[in-house]
């Protein structure tokens, strides 16, 4: 229990160190995103840049997201189903 607490605190301390090491808040490095903002309208025809990212530049991730949802629905149906026949 004690060791658990100590490890937890040290772990969080390192993550906190990471929070101080990240770029200053509200001044992100941007190269890919600048390109996307400037060219999303021309390349994808969407006025909303986030839409263009979700459905065009990173559409494959969205396919994965839909798959996750489908898998989770099937998974919940499998996990909560009642047994029809007592074969085992």
């Amino acid at each position, binding site marked *: 229990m004690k060791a658990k607490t100590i490890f937890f605190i040290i772990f969080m301390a*390192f*993550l906190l*160190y*990471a929070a101080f*090491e*990240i*770029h200053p808040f509200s001044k*992100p*490095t*941007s*190269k*890919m*995103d*600048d*390109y*996307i903002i400037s*060219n999303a309208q021309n390349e994808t025809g969407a006025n909303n840049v986030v839409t263009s990212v979700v459905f*065009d*530049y*990173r*559409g*494959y*991730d969205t*396919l*994965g*997201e839909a*798959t*996750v949802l*489908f*898998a*989770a629905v*099937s*998974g*919940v*149906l*499998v*996990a*909560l*189903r*009642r*047994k*029809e*026949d007592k*074969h*085992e």
Partner: protein
Amino acid sequence: MNLIQQMPAILIGMPLIAAFLTPIIDRVNKKIRNGFVIVVLILEEIFMITLAWHVFTNGIAIYTMGASNPSIVPLQAAVPIRIVLEIDGMSAFMGLISATVCLAAGIYSISFIKEGNGKGKYYTLLLIMLVGMLGMEFTGDLFNLFVFLEILSITSCALIAYRNWYGDAVEGAFKYMVVSNIAALFVLFAIGLLYSRYDLLNIAAISKIMEYGSLEKIALVLLVSAFAMKCGAVPMHFWAPDSYTVAPAPITAILVSASQASLYALFRTCFSLYGNLMDYHSIGIVLILFGLLSMFIGVTMALPQKDIKRLMAYHAVSQTGYMLLGVGVGLYLLGSSNFNTYGVKAMEGGIFHIINHAMYKGLLFLTAGAIFYRLKTRNLNEMGGLAHTMKFTSIFFIIGALAIAGIPPFNGFASKLLIYEACYKVNPILSIIAMLVSILTLASFVKVFHSAFMGPKLHDVEEAPKSLLIGMGILTFVIILFGLFPGWVVNNIVHPAVTALANRIDYINAVMGG
């Protein structure tokens, strides 16, 4: 349009569409559904072999999602904007494992999983699991890796809980879910850290401009420990025996190669993302220590087990140690002049062991499933004398057990020999521990063989049904093939994988251009 050029997308898309169609076909006819799933899995295997052949002969294959010419990465603003699938030797190698194991497990499931109200969903989830593994192995994008990691863990958890009328099945699924989600969330956090630094998500692009600062160090630690937990390295292996034990046998066989997909992600992180930028000596030593601990604790915990699948699950942990040891030695020697002499051999051993382990451990879990199918128990104390009637199952078990114990001429011996000899050059103690673990492995499988198959005829059982035998037969065939021609396999399949891992520059250049 060149078909081979589109193969990466077909390989991921085909089982995905098949998975979405399976519940509909399930409504129509159960037999058609079984046939449909098997045909998809066989096609997948054929396509995978085609793609792997292409990759092994022509080098890295690239597929850019949504680009007009998918095999070229459009470098807008000098970085890849779209998601890139990058299939090098290592990815193709892992893809071969996943496709083969899923084919065997799919055929095995026809008789093994009883027709009930869940079998349609079972096949759906099995196909999505295959998609998750292939997606993890093919992707060249960090966030995409996370998405497929989650797909894989959600489907595996749902399938572990398939026999939800046993309390422990649900418990194992819950534990695996918590563990894999914590791991995945810290992976996502690490991806966020890398994104904040470089504003990039492509592995090759990040690797090209990476500097080894403190943020990268924190990301490295989170990635390494999360993937090590997901692949079942001691002392983060506790979920592995729990969930392997309670899952249906074909799912356990797939779970072995699913945790190897995490192992792949670990190697990809160490070699392609960080490579020789990082302090690879100390990370190499960490991997070696993980390997030694996994080997030793895994095998000693396996010896006193009474549950046949739990015993095999601890052996899965123990065998993961060999892979970590072999590749860890390679990482430790990376860049030094010794790498080209015995570092490569150690990595060849470790990588060759991945495919060997997937085959024989899959086979052993399938034989355990065949015993469970007939006896309805996993307890070794209640078994005995099965070799009188279940002749084929016992032959398959002997082959698997000899292969895992590293008895020549089976494939386990070839990969272990490579590991022993290369590790001996680094430090003799590594080889000694590896051999000791191998002996203890043999000892514990002698125990299983004696208590399950030998002795007087205690149970009046029949041989396992045909589909189970075919599923086991496929894996046995691969084991014997690899055991007889290890040199051919190492030169043509394993060596490209090793060079793909070791040459980070090639990996970067394939995406970013020379």
